[in-house]
């Protein structure tokens, strides 16, 4: 990738041409809401098949960054290219992008079943008729996330974990190439979180998906991310977690909170011992730059 950067581009060449493998290309992105700068001059590349995780403290602008990438918020400067298309005019490329918002905000009394929610994503086929024909497609998608038994349940009556599974199935329904997930395990109980991340990891490996994920959990980052992006109003680091997540970077990212994160990693609680040993093996400094698995 760094070799690509040095190649000289003719003037009429777009930056995206320089990164033929990029699934996500964010260039010089700045978001200001009212008079408040949310984040400034953020640039990064996520190559096809990679998992990139965005970390940072509360209020660092992680969700806003994801929302800007998806053209839900208009940036002051900069551009976002998703799967080779400018995010402001994605057209049919939208079907190749799966999105899972953080804690989906909806009316819990909305009388709609999981099956019907999934039908909303299969937009060309209509909502009212020929439901039997679409049931198999929907059941297949739900089976992938082990949620097939929820198909006829009312969406408002699902537990936090069940809802996240359904939303993941929804995001995966059209067989996307790119998955953008904002804290996908929010609302999942602690015991279920690990399984949920494993599930995402399994699906992305199986389908060669590119994943961009906001996460608050450094363990998850060490375990699954090919690339980590530390955000706190600006991009403070990017690279392989084992190589870039140094104490001074964490301190810069999280400010005073860093101490507690470091503490967590250097003196793991009993139930985390297992995971942390794995990390120690995994982010052996020699592994920087290549894919860890």
């Amino acid at each position, binding site marked *: 990738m760094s070799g690509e950067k040095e190649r000289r581009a003719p003037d009429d060449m777009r930056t995206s041409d320089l990164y033929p493998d990029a699934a996500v290309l964010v260039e010089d992105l700045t978001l200001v809401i009212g008079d408040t700068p949310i984040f400034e001059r953020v640039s990064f590349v996520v190559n096809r098949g990679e998992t990139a995780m965005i970390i940072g403290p509360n209020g660092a602008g992680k969700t806003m960054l994801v*929302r800007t990438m*998806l*053209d*839900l918020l208009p940036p002051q400067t900069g551009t976002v290219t998703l799967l080779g298309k400018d995010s402001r005019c*994605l*057209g049919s490329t*939208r079907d190749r*992008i799966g*999105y899972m*918002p953080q804690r*989906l*905000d*909806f*009316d819990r*009394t*909305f*009388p*709609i*079943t999981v*099956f*019907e*929610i999934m*039908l*909303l*994503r299969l*937009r060309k086929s*209509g*909502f*009212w008729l020929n*439901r039997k024909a679409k049931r198999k497609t929907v059941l297949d998608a739900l089976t992938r996330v082990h949620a097939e038994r929820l198909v*006829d349940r*009312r969406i408002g009556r699902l537990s936090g974990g069940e809802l996240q599974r359904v939303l993941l199935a929804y995001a995966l329904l059209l067989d996307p190439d790119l998955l953008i997930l904002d804290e996908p395990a929010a609302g999942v109980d602690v015991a279920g979180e690990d399984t949920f991340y494993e599930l995402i990891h399994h699906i992305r490996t199986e389908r060669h998906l590119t994943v961009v994920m906001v996460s608050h959990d450094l363990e998850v980052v060490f375990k699954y991310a090919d690339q980590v992006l530390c955000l706190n109003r600006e991009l403070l680091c990017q690279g392989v977690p084992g190589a870039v997540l140094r104490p001074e970077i964490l301190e810069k990212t999280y400010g005073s909170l860093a101490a507690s994160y470091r503490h967590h990693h250097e003196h793991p609680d009993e139930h985390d011992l297992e995971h942390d040993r794995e990390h120690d093996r995994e982010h052996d400094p020699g592994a920087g730059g290549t894919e860890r698995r």
Partner: protein
Amino acid sequence: MTDLLSFLQYPFMQRALLAVVTVGFLCAVVGVYVTLRSMSFFSDAISHSALAGIALGVLLGIDPVVAAVVFCVVVAAGITFLTVRTDLTSDTVIGVFFSGSMAVGVLLIGLQKGYQTDLLSYLFGDVLAVNNLDVALSLGLAAAVVASLFRRSTLLIKIAFNRDLAAVEGANVVAWDYAFMMLLALTVAVSVKIVGIVLVSALIIVPAAAARNIASDFRRLMGIAIVIGLTGATVGLVASYYLDTASGPTMVMVVILIFIVTLVAGRRR
């Protein structure tokens, strides 16, 4: 049975039946989306703004229903515009337009000479005064509104469910806000002559609300709301004929009774 249907020998009752069936169906379909989007207050405001439109129509000598359609659409656009473009909550904006358009309506009525029986019939509806043009207008508009709602139902349901998901999938959410409010304004305008300004929003809200008490999925919600709307309209009309009561309030009372039944039935499940 033939006795019960004897009222159908009168042409004005045939027109009335056709009009209430159209309006009952239309209001029920629109009402499902209105309740999902929590826009009951908005539909109330639009229906009350029809008063000013009708008064303006009478004053200028144009068809009051046509004037009401135009005025309702303008008010709906105004509310949507201010809600999108200012920091005011939609609740506040609707409140301003609600009282403002009522005041304009009452002032315009004051400009008329003499006592306005015709205007008063618009307040509570007069289905027996419905003429052929009214029936044709409501049938045409109802067909257009229902067709657009069903054609784009996937999108409209998605927007009502979660705006971000809809936007990420390419929906122009704000444009659809305007479009939906226009459809609602049209629905109100074609319904006011039949059920009246004061009661039209009941015919929109109550069937959907009653259906929501017992429906387990969205398709049933829509189906049940339509059945309740049609039942309320026809039973209400027939009852008002035999009981010699005002048709608009009778129709509303029928759907309210159904609402109470579904509320109890839904609780018991």
